[in-house]
């Protein structure tokens, strides 16, 4: 046996290092059909299983390998921004919020998906498709950067038992906006009189945290006639008296409920999970929150699951149908991805109606299927479960409009800065007039929009 000398150890070490370095391209070549896919972790385990099944089926059919990671959406957003900034990106990333796709499309950081989406776009909810069709400030044109897969709206969630205990009758629930909301008002006093100390009528999210308060304010503003805050040409209409009037009415409605003690005081600093926790603790009779994750969290607790009524948008005060704002989520391919061809193939596979339907059904329908034809024909979506029926009816069948981020990425920054919710707080806590709060918020929004001029569409 040869003696180990310092020189021989060093020589061997350098030799191994060199062999490793030279061997690396071989490994890379061998993995040419492997793609890295980042998706958001589901709210219920069934969602994750459904994704894994879909990925495994793709692997079987294509012979390619999908290296996937499922990450909670807040962490995923941070991971994705970091990846795009550093340039070390996976092949496919799921959009997990309202801001990433519009802002990264604006900066030309995503691969165009027109060749995938254009041929099949007719099958999707047309009003939601703009959520995938973003403006690129380098090419000065709009393109599809997100593959449409999951549609989501914001329904009402109502505890039936609390309504009954509070002396209400859900069969008498009015169907116009103000009357619908006011139905819950007197329940609080009766519930408290019945011995429930900490119970409130509403679970409005009046916090400057996450996307829920943005959804809440927008829905209220749209209900009062302010849907044209941002129009499809990307223009901001803070100077439109109708928009301003609607925004003020929205603030008044939300803050009056708070001032009257009908909303849990803690809602001014709720984070994303707090309203769900509060609702599950029966702290409020009604909550207004995106998707049916609130219900699905209790999926295995049948009694409580059945005790929740999911309700779509009521009519406007003058009896017209109100459009629900919807977001359409799906995967993007970041520029710099090593294997764009396989990434596109995977995305295309995932978007196939049959595959997508099975995937979303596997996830218990937390995300609705954005394909009306299948929604109407598959009983899973509109017949098998009352929560899902109400939610899918609202998201896919009834009138919808895209979130404003589809029109101009500036609104993503307006939302992230919570310029409106800061004003809501001033009205509730500092006695500011709602008109002044809206003026301040709109002024800031105008400053931000000035950075995102859309020259053509």
């Amino acid at each position: 046996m040869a003696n180990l000398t310092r020189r021989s150890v060093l020589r061997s070490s350098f030799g191994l290092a060199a062999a490793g370095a030279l061997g690396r391209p071989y490994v890379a070549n061998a993995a040419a059909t492997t793609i890295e896919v980042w998706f958001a972790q589901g709210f219920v385990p069934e969602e994750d299983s459904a994704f894994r099944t879909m990925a495994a089926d793709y692997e079987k059919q294509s012979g390619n390998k999908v290296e996937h990671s499922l990450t909670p959406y807040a962490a995923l957003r941070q991971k994705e921004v970091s990846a795009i900034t550093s340039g070390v990106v996976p092949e496919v990333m799921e959009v997990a919020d309202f801001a990433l796709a519009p802002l990264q499309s604006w900066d030309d950081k995503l691969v165009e998906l027109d060749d995938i989406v254009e041929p099949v776009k007719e099958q999707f909810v047309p009003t939601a498709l703009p959520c995938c069709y973003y403006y690129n400030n380098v090419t000065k044109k709009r393109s599809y950067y997100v593959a449409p897969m999951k549609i989501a709206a914001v329904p009402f969630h109502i505890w039936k038992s609390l309504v009954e205990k509070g002396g209400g009758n859900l069969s008498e629930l009015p169907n116009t906006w103000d009357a619908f909301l006011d139905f819950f008002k007197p329940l609080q006093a009766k519930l408290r009189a019945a011995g429930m100390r900490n119970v409130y009528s509403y679970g409005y999210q009046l916090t400057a945290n996450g996307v829920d308060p943005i959804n809440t304010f927008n829905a209220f503003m749209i209900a009062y006639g302010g849907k044209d805050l941002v129009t499809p040409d990307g223009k901001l209409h803070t100077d439109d008296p109708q928009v301003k009037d609607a925004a003020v009415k929205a603030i008044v409605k939300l803050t009056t409920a708070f001032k009257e003690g009908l909303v849990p005081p803690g809602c001014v600093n709720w984070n994303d999970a707090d309203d769900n926790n509060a609702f599950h603790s029966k702290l409020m009779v009604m909550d207004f929150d995106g998707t049916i994750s609130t219900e699905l969290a209790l999926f295995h607790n049948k009694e409580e699951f059945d005790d929740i009524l999911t309700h779509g948008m009521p009519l406007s005060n003058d009896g017209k149908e109100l459009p629900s704002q919807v977001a359409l989520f799906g995967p993007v391919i970041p520029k710099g991805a090593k294997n764009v061809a396989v990434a596109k193939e995977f995305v295309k596979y995932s978007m196939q109606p049959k595959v997508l339907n099975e995937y979303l059904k596997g996830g218990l329908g937390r995300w609705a299927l954005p394909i009306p034809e299948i929604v109407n024909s598959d009983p899973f979506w509109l017949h098998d479960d009352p929560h899902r029926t109400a939610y899918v009816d609202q998201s896919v069948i009834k009138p919808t409009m895209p979130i404003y981020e589809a029109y101009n990425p500036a609104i993503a920054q307006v939302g992230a800065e919570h310029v409106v919710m800061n004003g809501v707080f001033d009205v509730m806590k500092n006695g500011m007039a709602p008109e002044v709060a809206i003026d301040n918020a709109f002024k800031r929004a105008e400053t931000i929009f000035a950075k995102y001029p859309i020259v053509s569409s």
Partner: protein
Amino acid sequence: MTTASAIEFAAPPVRRQSLWRSLRGELKGSEYTWALAFVVPYVGVFLAFVVYPAVYGLWLGSEPSLYPEIFSDPIYQSTVVNTLLFIGIGVNLKMFIALLLSGFFMRPGWWVKVLLMIFILPWAVPALPSFISIHWMLNGEWGLLNNLLYAMFNIDGPSWLNERWTALGSVIVSHIWKWTPFWTVILLAGRMAIPTEINDAAKVDGATGVRSFIYVSFPLLANLYLICTLLSTIFTLGDFNEVYFITGGGPANSTHVLATLGVRNAFDLAQPRLGVAAVMSALPLMIPLVIILMRKLKTSEVQL
């Protein structure tokens, strides 16, 4: 032989040390190769995980146009004020408490050791679950604190996280709760390093109790205390966990500190450069602290 050449011969030879030789030092033959083999991994790690991130961060925040944008953010000023309060009150109060407690834990007795073990727990438990628990504990409606107040005194406590000052106060108290044990242990180690003879001599001279602390212990600990305070200030400037998980910067963005503003800009606004710029705007405070710290670390003698 000329005079000049005689002088040349008489002059001692000038040793011109080449760069190569100065790098090699006194190492000979394979010793140098060995030294290199041991040093390279550390240099590699240092370059990859210290130099690269720092330079990358500086590069990300180097665009001058970022700063007017940061300064025009409506919440920037209140964020700076919060940062100063968080550090000024949080760090100093924590260090002062740690200084006092380190004296207490010098006491003899097995129960003091047991108490120390329990006292260290807040530092030992993972930070994020702790702060999320505090966020829930302080909830006005279903939080543990207000429920206890109601159960014990039949009173409804305030919504702790609903007002800027109670929310910021909660963050400061949580910071003190979390980090006091760590600095107490450091200062305890400093106290234990003071030779007992000094205290014994002081006792002979009549310095006991508070007098002994003021005239003996504290002067001996002063340098360590200052270095710990500076270090803690630097750590806290870059730490976003307390604010991020307890108040989330709320209510209405009123409790952000520069670190959380940076996180918001980087990820919620998806503008990492703006996020780095927010954090970099703390450099005028950070750089003097680092310089003072470096100078203090050079001090090798006990300062009485």
